C-alpha cells in the first residue's frame, strides 16, 4: 500500500540573529510534512504492516524534500528528527507504525550515514495543532549543541481520518550553543552516541 498523500508542506527557517548577535552563517532547519489518509481510521486493525511500508516511503520522500529545501548535499546534514500526529479517528499506535519500524533506513540514505537514533515524538491531534519535532545530531546523539526542536502546524490537518507525518533536517545546531558537552567537530560518529 502506498501513501494517499493529500498535501505536502515544507518549512525552512534561517536564524540570522539571536540575542542581538549576528549568526553567520545563519543556522537553518527544514521540516517536511505529509498529510496522508489513515487507512485504519475508525477501526481496530491488528496488522499495521501497511503503515510501516508507508513509513518507509515517507522516510525517503520527506527526507529528500528537507535536503532539497536546504539546498545542501546529503553529507552536510547535521541533525534530524521525526514526528507524527494522528487525527481523532486513528490511534496512537498508527504513529508508531509509521515512525519506528521502517522509516529510518530510507531517511538515513537521504542524509548520508545517520548513525544516531532518530529522535521522535507522537501525539493524537487535530487541524491547527502544533507538533514539536525533536532534533538530535544524526551521527552522535550526545552532541549537545544539536539538541533542539522545530514546530510544525497546518491549519487544515490532520483531519479526523488523516495522519500528519513530519521529518526535520538541519545543517547546523542551535544559534549560540554554550552549554558545553560533546561538539560536532569532536564527534566520532561511529556508535551513534559519541
Amino acid at each position, binding site marked *: 500500500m502506498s501513501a494517499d498523500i*493529500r498535501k*505536502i508542506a*515544507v518549512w525552512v527557517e*534561517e*536564524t540570522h*540573529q539571536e540575542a542581538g548577535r549576528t549568526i553567520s552563517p545563519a543556522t537553518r532547519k527544514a521540516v517536511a510534512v505529509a498529510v496522508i489518509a489513515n487507512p485504519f481510521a475508525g477501526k481496530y486493525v491488528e496488522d499495521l504492516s501497511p503503515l510501516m511500508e508507508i513509513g518507509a516511503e515517507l522516510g525517503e520522500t520527506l527526507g529528500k524534500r528537507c535536503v532539497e*529545501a536546504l539546498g545542501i548535499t546529503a553529507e552536510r546534514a547535521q541533525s534530524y528528527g521525526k514526528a507524527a500526529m494522528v487525527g481523532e479517528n486513528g490511534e496512537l499506535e498508527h504513529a508508531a507504525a509509521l515512525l519506528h519500524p521502517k522509516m529510518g533506513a530510507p531517511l538515513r540514505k537521504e542524509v548520508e550515514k545517520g548513525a544516531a537514533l532518530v529522535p521522535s515524538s507522537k501525539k493524537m491531534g487535530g487541524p491547527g495543532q502544533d507538533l514539536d519535532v525533536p532534533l538530535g545530531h544524526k551521527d552522535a546523539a550526545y552532541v549537545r549543541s544539536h539538541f533542539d526542536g522545530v514546530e510544525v502546524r497546518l*491549519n487544515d490537518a490532520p483531519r479526523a481520518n488523516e495522519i500528519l507525518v513530519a521529518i526535520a533536517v538541519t545543517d547546523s545546531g542551535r544559534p549560540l550553543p554554550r552549554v558545553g558537552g560533546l561538539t560536532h567537530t569532536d564527534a566520532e560518529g561511529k556508535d551513534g552516541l559519541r
Partner: protein
Amino acid sequence: MPDVVVRKIATVIEEVFHEGGPRANVPQKRGAVVAVISNPYAGAYVEDIQPFMEDLKPLGLEMAQKLIDALGGDASVIEGYGKGSIVGTAGELEHGALWHAPGGYAMRELLGDAKAIVPSTKKVGAAGVRLDVPITHINASYVRGHFDAMEVGMNDAPRANELAFVLVMSTGARVHDRAGGLSANDIKGEDGLR
C-alpha cells in the same frame, strides 16, 4: 534612515494533491516567505515613518526571489499573490502598513507586469500568532478560482520589538475549484480586475 535588521527568515511551501476529490494532474502550490526584523519605531510614537519603506525595498526583493526559488524558480508559473504584516506588541498597526509599497513593488518587479492589486492583511500580535494572508489572481482580481488564503506564523515571532513581513504566492486555483465566476482563461488582464 533606520537599518533593516533581520533576525529570521522562513519559507513554507504547500503542495496540494487533492482535498477529497479527484487527484490534480498538477498539484497546486502555495508558498509564503516571512521575514522577522527589528521594528525601529517600537516603544514610541514617531510621526514620520515613511522613509523606512524605501529601506525595506531590498528586503522585499530578496524575499520575493527566495519565494519564487522555493516554488521551483520559474516566475511564469505564479498566478496568485498576497501580502501581510504582523506588528509586535510594542509597535502600532500603522507600522504594518509600511509593507504596502515595498512588498507589492517587489512581487510586481519579479512577476513581470502584474496588473491586480495585491490583497493584504495586517494585525498586531504576539509570538506564535497566526496571520491569514489573502491570495488573488495577479492580473485580474475577480478570478474566482484563485481567491484563496494561506495561514502563516512562527512560534518565536514577532517579539514585542519586531515586525514580521509576509509575501505569499500560489501557482493556480484552489485544488477543486468549482464555484464558478470569472475563469483565469477568460480574463482580459488590462484593468487588474477582469
